[in-house]
């Protein structure tokens, strides 16, 4: 069981539906999106159903210019003006407020707050470690250290490793990882070398240092993260819950709603439902692409596919995909399994294109990047 839902605004019954599939390990709760009373009820309900809960304290929002976390005030999460030269007493007060907010919501473990790090050498880096250290001193509950960094930070392995050398001096139960992307376009294509280094970080923290690790906002890349050693990976209903970007936290006006997508397991790709999914459903390889005949026929007939359908389908599909990976096997076996899945998806993608399906080239490049990242990771770690 490895699938975590990334909670956000407008949860409605989405978490319940995914939980009913029996595939929900846990939920990373967002205090920015529900007030305390409501989140308390959500947490209690999830725990009663056997799901784990953690709460992302989202301090990083306050290190993003223009960032807003709507409901933080109701949780007592008053982070005020953050600066890289904050007094230790300010850090302690903020950490205390996070602990108290967790107590109110009833989480059995606490995620330490952290700023958003653009690199592992920026002004926030030492402070991020101090938040972790302060939380370990603040509570007797298990603590998850926050590692919240932009993907570009992982481009420099020496700097990343120096950060890991420091992070691993903290005796925490786990790590909550969020990798930010500067763009906001979903689905996102990783740069292979950065993904490889993110996977190395996961591997080192879990396999070597025995931290539990939950990768937030991971989406499909979470499958690679699980292969590397993560115990859980999260995705959510909105696109902004499937990839983390600073822009998610800056209020926007206008703009159109994203097209509903259909996550096709055998292609490991979220196809645009109106164009791509219909196109591929009408090819001669549709039976190979769709493992679900009902879904194939649905799109062959170009029937309605609403945004709510796509949200649930995405989460349950990713959850099923994650559950297929046996995390009790050796990391080398897991990586080989995921590389095999990606290779099969790429071949099928090629067959679908050859059969006339009109598919965005971004699906291929995203999968190729994922596979290249996995291979680089395996080579670097000698797997």
């Amino acid at each position: 069981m490895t699938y975590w839902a990334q909670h956000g605004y407008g949860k409605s019954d989405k978490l319940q539906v995914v939980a009913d599939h029996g595939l929900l390990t846990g939920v990373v709760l967002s205090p920015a999106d529900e007030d305390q009373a409501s989140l308390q009820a959500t947490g209690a309900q999830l725990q009663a159903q056997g799901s784990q809960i953690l709460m992302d304290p989202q301090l990083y929002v306050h290190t993003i210019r223009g960032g807003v976390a709507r409901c933080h005030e109701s949780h007592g999460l008053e982070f005020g003006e953050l600066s890289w030269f904050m007094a230790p007493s300010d850090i302690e007060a903020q950490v205390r407020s996070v602990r108290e907010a967790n107590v109110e919501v009833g989480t059995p473990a606490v995620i330490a707050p952290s700023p958003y790090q653009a690199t592992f050498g920026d002004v926030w880096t030492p402070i991020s470690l101090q938040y972790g250290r302060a939380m370990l001193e603040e509570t007797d509950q298990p603590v998850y250290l926050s590692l919240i960094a932009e993907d570009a930070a992982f481009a420099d392995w020496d700097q990343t490793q120096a950060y890991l050398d420091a992070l691993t001096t903290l005796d925490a139960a786990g790590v909550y990882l969020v990798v930010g992307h500067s763009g906001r376009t979903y689905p996102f294509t990783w740069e292979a070398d950065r993904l490889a280094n993110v996977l190395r970080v996961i591997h080192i923290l879990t396999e070597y240092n025995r931290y539990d690790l939950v990768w937030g906002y991971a989406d499909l890349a979470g499958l690679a993260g699980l292969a590397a050693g993560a115990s859980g990976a999260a995705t959510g209903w909105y696109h902004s819950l499937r990839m983390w970007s600073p822009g998610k936290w800056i209020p926007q006006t206008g703009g159109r709603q994203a097209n509903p997508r259909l996550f096709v397991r055998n292609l490991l790709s979220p196809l645009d439902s109106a164009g791509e999914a219909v196109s591929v459903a009408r090819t001669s390889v549709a039976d190979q692409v769709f493992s679900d005949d009902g879904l194939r026929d649905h799109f062959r007939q170009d029937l309605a596919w609403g945004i709510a359908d796509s949200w649930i389908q995405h989460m349950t599909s990713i959850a099923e995909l994650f559950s297929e990976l046996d995390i009790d096997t050796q990391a080398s076996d897991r990586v080989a399994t995921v590389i095999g899945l990606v290779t099969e998806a790429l071949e099928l993608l090629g067959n679908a294109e050859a059969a006339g399906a009109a598919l965005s080239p971004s699906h291929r490049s995203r999968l190729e990047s994922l596979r290249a990242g996995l291979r680089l990771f395996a080579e670097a770690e000698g797997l």
Partner: protein
Amino acid sequence: MLTNPLDHAAVAAAFPEFSIDVDPLGCGGMKNAYRMERGGDLAVLKVVREPLPPADDEGAVSLPERIRREIDGMRAINHRGIVQVIEGPDVREVEGEDRVWYVEPFYAGGTLTDRLGSPWSHGEVLDLVSALSDAAEELANNRVVHRDIKPGNIVFDGEDNPVLLDLGIAYFQDLTPLTEGWGHSPRTPSYAAPEQFELRRRTSIDFRTDLFLIGIVAFEALTGQHPFNPSEGEGYLDRLATGAFDGGALDGVDATPCIRNILQRLLAPGMSQRFRKFEFLRDDIEACR
């Protein structure tokens, strides 16, 4: 070339109450070591070669800081795997100048250097790693990093248990470092972890540094060879710091995957790739047995 060399006969003459073997056991960077007899037992006299500075106006003399730390460290830590001070420190005039001396036990089993050369069994290697890591853990619990674990600093007691000698360049984590931030960490070059070659202000040293050094001596015990071949000086630092140690270094060596894994983890170039807790190492050692 030793700084402040001492005439060994003069040392023996300065300590008439001890029956001193004028042939020294060793002459390190700062001290000479002599076998001696004390109350019928063999012991080791250590004499700091550098003379003490003149006493101040009140007649007080101050020990060199590194020596003071070494002795305080040995006194604070009581563990069978770490050398103890059994007498001293004190000051005695040797060759016309005041010098610090103290006495340590004599360990009859000789040094690890004497025992290297032919490969050890897996069980012996695991025992060595286990005992040395126990000692390193005790040091870590006292916020001390040995930094100089090497065959010459490992002796065996009467029950054949390894004992760590010489806290001379140990890092006391609660005390101000004695090296400048722009300097390198003290080290024995062929028995040093990659981070000891970094400028001190750009790196940190903790017990995982000692784990790397334990990895080197364990590898030597297993194979009879140094894992990074320091005698071939060119490229040594690269081999050390870029993770050139991998399974390939063990090709042709009789080593189970389990032992290989332990050695790879001990000898990982990054501190975060080594063992974060001694208990994790113990778990892996137990799994190997």
